[in-house]
C-alpha cells in the first residue's frame, strides 16, 4: 500500500483494502494472479449487477412514462424447506434474476442452415469485447482496473469488435432479414463512429493526453471553490458532449436510433434467429456497451469521479462516478420513452451532414481554446464569447440550411 493511499479517508480506500486483505491470504506466488483476478471479478460482477438493475429501472421508468406500473410482481421465491414464506414483492426488484433463469432454461434454437460456429461465436465475441471496454474507466480516485497510457484508443479499439460480432450474427443466421438488418446496422455504426470519436478529440487536444486517469484529474479544479471545471461547462465541451450523447445513442442501437431491431421493419434484425441465453447475451452486451459509453462520457465530460464542489468530497469518489453514471442511463431511458424512431435516410443524413461537420468545427474550437489558455481578465470574456460563437453560429447556419424547405407535417385527415 502506497503512502498516498494511506492518507486517504477510510471509505475512499476501503475497496482496495479489502482486495489487499484477500490477496494477503493467498500464498506468495499466487498473489499476483489473485490481485488481477479480483480486479476482473469486481468489474464483471459489479457491472453485471449494474446491468441487471438497469433493466429493472428501464422497464419501470418506461412503464411510468407510458402510464403503466412496470414489473412489480417478482418477489422472493418460496423455498419449501423454509417454515415461512417471505411474501414481500420487493417492488419487483428481483425481476432480472427471474429473467436470467428464464433465459437460461429456454430452448436454444439454431437454424438448420446456420453457420453453427459463427452463430455460436457472435454473442460470445460481443459480450467479451463490451466487457473489455470497462478496463480503462476510472471508477474512483484509485479504482481504475488498468492504467494505460493510450486508454482512450484502447476503449475505441475494444469497442469496434462489436461491429464484427454483429455482422457474424447477421450473416451466420442464413436469414434474409438478419443479413439485411446486419448490413443496415453496420452502416449505422460506421456512420456514428466518426462523430463519436471526433467529439472526443477536443478533450485529447486540450488535455494533451489519451489517459483517462489524467483527463479526470485535469477536471478537478474549482472556480471560487464552487464551480467545477468539468469540460461540459466549456463551449466546446458542451457541444462535444451533445454530439457524444447522440452518437452514443446511435452506437448502442438505442431509441430513437434503434433501427437494427426495428420489429415492424426487419423482424428483430440480427437477433431474429437467436433465442434463449444467446439472445440474452446480445441484450447484455448492448447494455454493457451503453454503460461503458456512458461511463466514458462521465469520465471525459462530467468530471469522472470528481465531486461537483470541494465540500462534497467527503462522499467517496466511486459513489460520485456511479451517481453520474446512473444519471446518464436514466437520461437515456427518458429519451427512449420520449422520442420517435428515425428513418434510415434521416439517420445517416443526421450523422454525415450535421454531426460530422459540427464535430470537425468543434475540434477547431478546442484548438482555439487551448491556444488562448493564457488569456486572463477581460480577455477571458472575449475568449468565452468567441468559443460560444464558434459553437452556436455553425449550429444555427447548418441547421437552417439542412431544414430549409421542410415544414412541420400537416395532417389533413387526422387532425
Amino acid at each position, binding site marked *: 500500500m502506497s503512502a498516498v493511499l494511506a492518507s486517504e479517508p477510510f471509505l475512499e480506500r476501503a475497496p482496495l483494502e479489502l482486495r489487499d486483505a484477500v490477496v494477503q491470504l493467498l500464498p506468495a506466488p499466487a498473489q499476483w494472479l489473485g490481485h488481477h483476478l479480483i480486479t476482473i471479478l469486481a468489474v464483471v460482477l459489479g457491472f453485471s449487477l449494474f446491468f441487471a438493475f438497469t433493466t429493472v429501472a428501464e422497464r419501470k421508468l418506461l412503464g411510468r412514462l407510458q402510464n403503466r406500473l412496470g414489473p412489480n410482481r417478482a418477489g422472493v421465491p418460496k423455498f419449501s424447506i423454509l417454515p415461512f414464506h417471505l411474501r414481500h414483492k420487493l417492488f419487483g426488484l428481483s425481476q432480472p434474476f427471474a429473467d436470467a433463469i428464464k433465459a437460461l432454461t429456454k430452448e436454444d434454437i439454431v437454424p438448420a442452415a446456420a453457420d453453427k460456429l*459463427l452463430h455460436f461465436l457472435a454473442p460470445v465475441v460481443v459480450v467479451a469485447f463490451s466487457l473489455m471496454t470497462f478496463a480503462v474507466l476510472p471508477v474512483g480516485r484509485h479504482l481504475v482496473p488498468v492504467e*494505460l*497510457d*493510450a486508454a482512450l*484508443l*484502447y476503449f*475505441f*479499439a*475494444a469497442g*469496434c*469488435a462489436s*461491429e*464484427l460480432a454483429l*455482422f*457474424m450474427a447477421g*450473416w451466420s443466421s442464413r436469414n434474409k432479414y438478419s*443479413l439485411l438488418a446486419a*448490413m443496415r446496422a*453496420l452502416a449505422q455504426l*460506421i456512420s456514428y*463512429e466518426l462523430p463519436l470519436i471526433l467529439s472526443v478529440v477536443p478533450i485529447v487536444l486540450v488535455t*494533451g*493526453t*489519451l489517459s483517462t486517469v489524467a483527463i479526470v484529474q485535469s477536471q478537478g479544479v474549482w472556480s471560487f471553490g464552487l464551480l467545477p471545471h468539468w469540460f461540459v461547462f466549456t463551449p466546446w465541451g458542451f457541444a462535444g458532449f451533445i454530439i457524444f450523447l447522440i452518437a452514443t445513442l446511435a452506437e448502442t442501437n438505442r431509441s430513437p436510433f434503434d433501427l437494427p431491431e426495428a420489429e415492424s421493419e426487419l423482424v428483430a434484425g440480427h437477433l431474429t434467429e437467436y433465442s434463449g441465453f444467446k439472445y440474452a447475451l446480445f441484450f447484455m452486451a448492448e447494455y454493457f456497451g451503453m454503460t461503458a459509453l456512458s461511463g466514458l462520457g462521465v469520465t471525459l465530460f462530467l468530471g469522472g469521479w470528481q465531486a461537483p464542489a470541494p465540500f462534497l468530497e467527503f462522499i467517496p469518489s466511486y459513489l460520485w462516478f456511479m451517481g453520474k453514471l446512473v444519471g446518464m442511463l436514466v437520461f437515456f431511458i427518458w429519451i427512449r420513452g420520449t422520442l420517435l424512431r428515425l428513418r434510415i435516410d434521416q439517420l445517416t443524413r443526421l450523422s454525415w451532414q450535421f454531426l460530422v461537420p459540427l464535430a470537425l468545427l468543434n475540434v477547431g474550437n478546442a484548438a482555439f481554446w487551448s491556444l488562448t489558455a493564457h488569456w486572463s481578465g477581460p480577455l477571458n470574456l472575449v475568449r468565452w464569447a468567441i468559443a460560444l460563437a464558434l459553437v452556436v453560429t455553425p449550429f444555427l447556419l447548418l441547421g437552417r440550411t439542412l431544414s430549409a424547405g421542410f415544414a412541420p407535417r400537416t395532417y389533413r385527415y387526422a387532425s
Partner: protein
Amino acid sequence: MTVALFLIAGLMLGSAGVALLLRNLIHSALLLVASWAGVAAFYLWAGAEFVAFAQILVYVGAISMVVLFAVLLTRQGLEISRPVEPDAQWRAFSAITVGACLAAVLGSAILSTKLPAATATAPTLSVKDTGLELMNHHGAALLIVGLILTVALLGATVLAATDKPQKTEDAA
C-alpha cells in the same frame, strides 16, 4: 516471452494460412481479421501500445468492414462453396510471377534496410512522444498520406455516386 511470441506468430500465420485455403469467402475474411488481431498482439508483445490499438481500430474495426461489404456485394450466386479453379495455365503462371516479384521487392527492401543496433535498454516511449515525433519530424509525410487518402475517398465517392436521371414519367 519467447513462448508468447511463438503463440502469437502461430495465430497470425495459422489464421492467414487457413484463410488462403478455405473456399468460404466470409470465413476467409473473418480469419484474416483474426490474423490482423494477431499482428496487434505482436505489437503489444513488442511494447508498442499505441500502434497495437491503432492496428485494431483501423484493421479489425474499419478495414474488415470494407472487406466484408466487398465480399457480400460482389458475390455472384449463392453457391459459396464453389471451387475456384485456375481456368488456364497462364493464370496460375501470372499469379506465381506476381507473387515472386512482390516477394523479391519486399525481401530486398527488408534486407537492404540498415536497422540501428539494439540499445542496452529499450526506450520507453509514451503516446505523447509518439505524437510529437509524428507531428514534428514526420509532419509532411502525415499530411501527404492524409491528402492521398482524401483523394482516394473522393474518388470512391465519385465512382459510387452514379446519379440516375430522375424518373421521366413524372416530368411528362
